[in-house]
């Protein structure tokens, strides 16, 4: 089985695992069991009727914006552990919203690259909407709002907003400017995803920003055997995240999809937990 098929199957399995309560869509109710106290490694709205786990970005804001706490050790610890173990492998192989964007990218059209400057926007969103606003913009009771979920998150609109408003007439009557704004962002994300590979992951996702920073130290990583590399540039041309794996194998943009390793004619790139290229490994096996 080639890498692309294996990745797609794992993405579908992860999508299924995070949406096990599919029957809830018809009634528009949420799963309320104990699994909801655990976070999903990928971005998936906990107000999605099928969701099994909690969204880590939503959970981080909810705890930090609550009356009792200003910071979530529980969620930050979870993200740190997942990020150090896997880095942006989560984005490439597990995240449900990543899979959705990849499916839209399959629509035949002219494909574009984004200027690198756009990739820095997600760090601003992480700092302002996820870390600062939920703690500082509080009401008289000291409770903050989950600003990223409230004003930006297109995953919440797609998996939570649309199914819930479709099944609850009383919620439909309360839709207004905010719902329109979020629908606009969702529409923009979907349209942009047709032309730009993983537009949201590249530009807006705060979870991608966290895992991207941890790509620098993650145990799961890309390894390039510089002695085997013939500088053909095939890996960089193959990469849809616009990364050159030879010069920056630990780039914050790399989602560890493995397309570069599969494309390398010299097997100089390896994706995994161990150090050393595939070629070096074969060499050791043969000696």
């Amino acid at each position, binding site marked *: 089985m080639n890498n692309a098929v294996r990745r797609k199957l794992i993405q579908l399995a992860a999508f299924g695992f995070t949406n096990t309560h599919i029957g809830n869509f018809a009634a528009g109710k949420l799963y309320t069991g104990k699994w909801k106290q655990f976070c999903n490694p990928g971005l998936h709205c906990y107000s999605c009727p099928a*969701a099994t786990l909690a969204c880590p970005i939503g959970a981080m804001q*909810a705890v930090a914006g609550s009356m009792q706490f200003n910071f*979530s050790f529980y969620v930050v610890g979870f993200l740190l552990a997942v990020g150090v173990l896997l880095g942006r492998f989560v984005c490439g192989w597990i995240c449900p919203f990543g899979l959705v964007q990849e499916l839209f990218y399959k629509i035949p059209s002219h494909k574009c690259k984004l200027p690198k400057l756009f990739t820095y926007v997600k760090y601003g969103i992480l700092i302002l909407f996820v870390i600062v606003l939920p703690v500082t913009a509080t009401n008289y009771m000291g409770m903050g709002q989950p600003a990223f*979920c409230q004003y930006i998150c297109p995953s919440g609109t797609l998996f939570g907003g649309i199914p819930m408003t479709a099944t609850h007439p009383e919620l439909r009557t309360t839709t207004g400017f905010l719902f329109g704004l979020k629908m606009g962002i969702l529409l923009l994300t979907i349209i942009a995803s047709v032309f730009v590979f993983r537009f949201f992951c590249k530009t807006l996702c705060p979870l991608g920003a966290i895992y991207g920073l941890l790509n620098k130290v993650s145990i799961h990583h890309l390894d390039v055997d510089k002695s085997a590399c013939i500088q053909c540039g095939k890996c960089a041309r193959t990469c849809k995240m616009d990364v050159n794996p030879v010069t920056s194998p630990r780039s914050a943009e790399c989602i560890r999809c493995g397309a570069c390793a599969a494309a390398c004619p010299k097997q100089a790139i390896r994706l995994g937990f161990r150090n050393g290229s595939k070629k070096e490994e074969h060499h050791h096996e043969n000696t």
Partner: protein
Amino acid sequence: MKLSTPKRAILQCAFLLAAALMIVCGINRGEQETVWNKAANICLECIGLG
């Protein structure tokens, strides 16, 4: 900044230890209850109504 393999290994261990301590600290403070309360009820902000 390029990290050497031993330095990276030390950082990985330190981060994993810090992550484990933070999770234990968070559970000890009852944060997972706050997460469950938010996740098990319709989040009006998340769906664009709040």
